[in-house]
Every structure is written in structure tokens, then in C-alpha cells.
């Protein structure tokens, strides 16, 4: 891996996305915003996986009729795809639960719609 400023930009973006996501999760009380925070964090992790596998000037990792040269790593891409699919399922479930909570309490504020305590 050749170090250098342009190469590090994806990783800086990863750190930024994950920090923003965590910050939102920890500070926001609106449940929809909470889910947004989780999705942002998820994008950060996915970006991290993809940029791990990137090789400068690499080509698409398909073996048949591949031209000479460095290939990018295919494994992290497969992992990212799986992770995206799982992320969609989680997000859908979270949003539908928020919808039900809203029906019961008429509010999506984490403090006001809270019933379980102690």
C-alpha cells in the first residue's frame, strides 16, 4: 500500500462518518434521527471495508480475460454487499418498530414515548 495523502482520504471519511453516526446515536432523542445515525455509522463501516480492498490502479477482480496488473481485493467487496443487505433488514425493522411506537404513544421522542423504567 502506498501511503500518501490522496490514499488516506477514504479513511478520514470513514472516521468522520463513524464519529458523526456515534455522536447522533448518543445525543439525539428523536427516534428517526437515531436510526439515521445508525445508518450513517453503517455507511462508514462499509466504506472502511471497501477502501481496505482497494489497490491503487487495481483492476476489476474477474479472472477470465483479465488484463495484466494488480487486482483489487474481492473479499471485502463481498463482505460489504452482505453487510449492506443486513443493514437494510435492520433499518426496515427499526423503522417499522418506530411506526408502531408512534401509533401507541403519538410521539417519537425517546423520553416522551418511554414506558419501561426502573
Amino acid at each position, binding site marked *: 500500500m502506498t501511503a500518501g495523502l490522496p490514499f488516506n482520504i477514504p479513511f478520514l471519511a470513514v472516521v468522520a462518518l*463513524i464519529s458523526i453516526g456515534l455522536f447522533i*446515536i448518543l445525543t439525539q432523542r428523536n*427516534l428517526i434521527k*437515531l436510526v439515521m445515525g*445508525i445508518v450513517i*455509522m*453503517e455507511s462508514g*463501516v462499509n466504506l*472502511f*471495508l471497501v477502501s*481496505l480492498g482497494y489497490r491503487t490502479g487495481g483492476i476489476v477482480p474477474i479472472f477470465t480475460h483479465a488484463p495484466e496488473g494488480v487486482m483489487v*481485493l474481492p*473479499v*471485502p467487496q463481498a*463482505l460489504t454487499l*452482505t*453487510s449492506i443487505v*443486513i443493514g437494510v*433488514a*435492520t433499518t426496515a*425493522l*427499526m423503522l417499522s*418498530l*418506530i411506526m*408502531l*411506537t408512534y401509533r*401507541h*404513544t403519538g410521539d417519537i421522542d425517546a423520553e416522551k*414515548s*418511554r*414506558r*419501561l423504567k*426502573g
Partner: protein
Amino acid sequence: MDSLVTHSSILAIAIPLLAAFIVPLVSKVGDKARNTVVIGALALAEFLVIILARDIYLNGLHVYTLGAAATDLTIPEHYMVPVRIILEVDAMSVFMGIITTTISLAGAIYSISFMKEETGGDRFYTLLLLLAVGMLGLVFTGDMFNFFVFLEILSISGAALAAFRTRFGDATEGGFKYIVISAVGALVVLFAVGILYSQYNLLSIAALAQAIQYTALDKIALALLVVALAMKLASVPLHMWAPDTYSVAPAGTTPMIYVASQACLYGLFRVLFSLYGVSLDTLTIGWVVIILGVLSMFVGVTMAVHQSDIKRLMAYHAISQSGYMLLGIGVGLAVLADPQALASYGREAISGGIFHIINNALYKGLLFLTAEALFFALGTRDLNKMGGMFRNMKYTAIFFIIGALAISGVPPFNGFTSKLMIYESVYNFSPVLAVIAMLVSILTLASFTKAFQSAFTGPALPQHDNVREVPKPMLIGMGILAVAIVFFSLFPSLVVDTIVTPATDALIDQAGYIGAVMGGA
């Protein structure tokens, strides 16, 4: 028979998975057919896990490579490292597998009569089977990425089950908390997996364990994994979701969601012992685990004492009991690098912790089921609105007594045996910790005496005059667990020798875990 044993690990995951998606179709035929498919699939999985366990105790670690010419061909020709998906099942994994399938089976049987009162049974059983698949996959997998995938499967199905009774507002809230905690936890796990992959280009736990250097990045990955898994297993101070989720999850699934968090406990131990192993600063990490354990034990039980909601009370005790396991295994981890201390008390501490996992899954499972039976019969979870139920619900009361005595560590019940192992070994390490553990045990007894007294003795309230014993499938579900508890209480040494000691050896033996995949390394 031989080929059945060879393929048993993947079949135990694949059969419930297949059944999960057949269930909605079979439901069109009728409820009886659906129940048969569900119970049949889980019973088959249990059978497969048991023959797999027998094979592992006789012949040692079991490796299954998906898609390879031979199932034990972990490293393809012309390759240096494993690239295929590998299931690696040692005595510790199969020990967790036995717990998982037993509790799932009891939970599914118990749910039959519960589901008569509810709608959407086909989806309920799909989720229940997926939860079982997630747990089995989590304990059987041999690589870090599938660890993440199965963690998500069990989280999503667990959260959907917890929120299943959507007509109650608190159910959706409990489910939402669980999915948020799980989603964040799983993302953190994935990030840690990414960090490990970035350095070694490996995903297999065994190959990673061989290559690991314990660099600064590895330490970050370790910290992330420990935090995420501690959150998933509801260890204090990351326990906030557990009482909410456990108290709203329907009937038979509460013990399963609880066992799912025990599977995450297994994941933590797998990471600490097999992935990092002796390359760790074991004394420091051991103390971290011990402190998590002591905090969970103590905070869990003190929060439980004043609860008036019976399922919340059970949930706080569940947190408290997880502390015992963390304590026992933490002590073992702290002395892992010191062969003499390990032989004199470390091994005993780990065995105690592992034995406590199965004991706890049984009696805690039973107690959750009795609590749910009370809720089912009375329509309330509030202990102050119960009373005198001993006359109306004799069997439930007896099951409750068995569970309560076992959890409080009263001899001769199984909880006593494993707690004694933990006390004795921990005393050698640090007497203060042993004293705290005993104190927690006494508080547990006090709390359960109170709960029993409020629910089952005293005058019955007039509105509960017509309350009857819960239906038979519920009693059978509880009965399976009660019989297992009595068996474990009568023959503790048999159980320890056959399943607990091999699990301890497997957990300590990192070289064996690596060697099975990397070949003679």
C-alpha cells in the same frame, strides 16, 4: 451414520433454516402440521448436535469446510491460507450447541398453546427458528465474518420476537431497544473484523490467531470486540436494554433471547481465548472481565430486589447470573499465562463458569417460563396483584420452587454445584471476590423468597378465583427443563466429566484450535 456425523454441523444449521421458510407454507395446511414441522426440525437439530457432540468427545475437534472436495480440506491446494467458509466445532462450541437446541425445543413446545391466543403464528415460528439458526451458527462458525452475519441473524429475529405482541406499547419499545443495541454492537464487531482483515488479510479465526501480532491496531480491535459483545450479553454497565427486552418478549422466546445473549458470551470467550489467547496481556484483560462480572453480579441483584414486575425481576437476576460466568472465566483468563496457578485453581474457575452457563440456561429458562405462565393465567406481571396461586397453579408453583432454589445456589441443586466451584477457585485468587459472590447468592435467595411469597402464598385475590393451571404444552415445556435441572442436580460429577471438562480443555487449548484448520501448526 458416518456421513451423518460428518455433515451434522452444517445440517444442524441448515435444517432449522430451511424449516423457517417452509413454516409459512405449511401453515396454510393447518396449525397441527405447522407445529409438527417446527418441533420436528428442532428435535432433529438437537439429535444432530448430540451425535456431533459424541463424535467430538471421542475423536476431538470437528472441522467442516463448505464447498471443498473433502470436508476436512480446510486449505485448498496451492493456497497458504484457508479461503472457504469453515465451521469449526470444538467441545466448547458443541456445549453451547446443546444448550441452544434444548432451550429452543422447550421454548417451541411451550409456545404452542401460547400461540393459540395470538395471530400470526406462521411468522412467529419463522422468527423462532431463525433465532435458533443464529445461535447455532454463532457458536459453530470458524470465521469472523460469519460470526458477524449470525450475530445479525439472531439480533434481527430476537428483536422481532421481543416486539411480537405489538398490541402492547411496551413490547415495541423493548424490541426497538434490542435492535438498536444489536445494530450498533454488530457494526462495531464488523469494524473490528475490518481492522483485523486490514492487517492480516484473513478472516478465519484459527488463521488469524496464528498470525496475530498484538499490535496497537489489534488492541483497538480487541477493545471494540469486548465492548460490543459485553453490550450484547447485557453486562453492567451496558445492561440497560436487557430488563426491557426480556420483560416484554413473549412466552417461550424469553429464554431463547437470553440464551442468545449467552451465545454472545461464548463469542467473547472465543475471541479472548482462541483468537487472542496467550498473546494477550492476560492479567489485565482477565481483570477487566472480572470487574465486568462483579459489577453485573452486584448491580443486577440489587436492582432485582425491589422490582415488582415479575419478568423484570427475572431479567435483573439474569444479568446478575451472567456475572458469575464472567467472574469464573475471568479468573481463569487472568492466570492463563501461569501454568501452576492455572492447574491449581484457574482450570476449576473456568469449569465453574462454563458449568454455570448450562445450569443457568436451564433454571433461568424455567423461571422465565413460570413467570410467563403467571402472566398468561393472570394477565398481569405485577407481583402486588398476585397471591395465593399455589392452590390454582400447583405445577407452576413446583417448577418455580425448583428454579428458585437452583438459582439461589441451595444445595443439592445444580446452581449450588457450579457456584461452589466458582467460590472455591476464586477464593484462591482473591478472597474478596468470593465473598461478594456469596453475598450476591444470599440476596438472590432473598429476592426469590419475596417473589414466591407474593405470587403463590397468602390469600388469593377475588378476581383470580377462576384462574386455572396453564395448558399442557406449557407444562411440558417447563417440565423438560425441570427434569434436566433435577438430573443435573443428582449427577453433577457425571455432567462435569462428560461435557464441562472437555469444554474447558477446548477453550484453553488454543494450539489445538489453530492446528485443526492450519494443519499441524
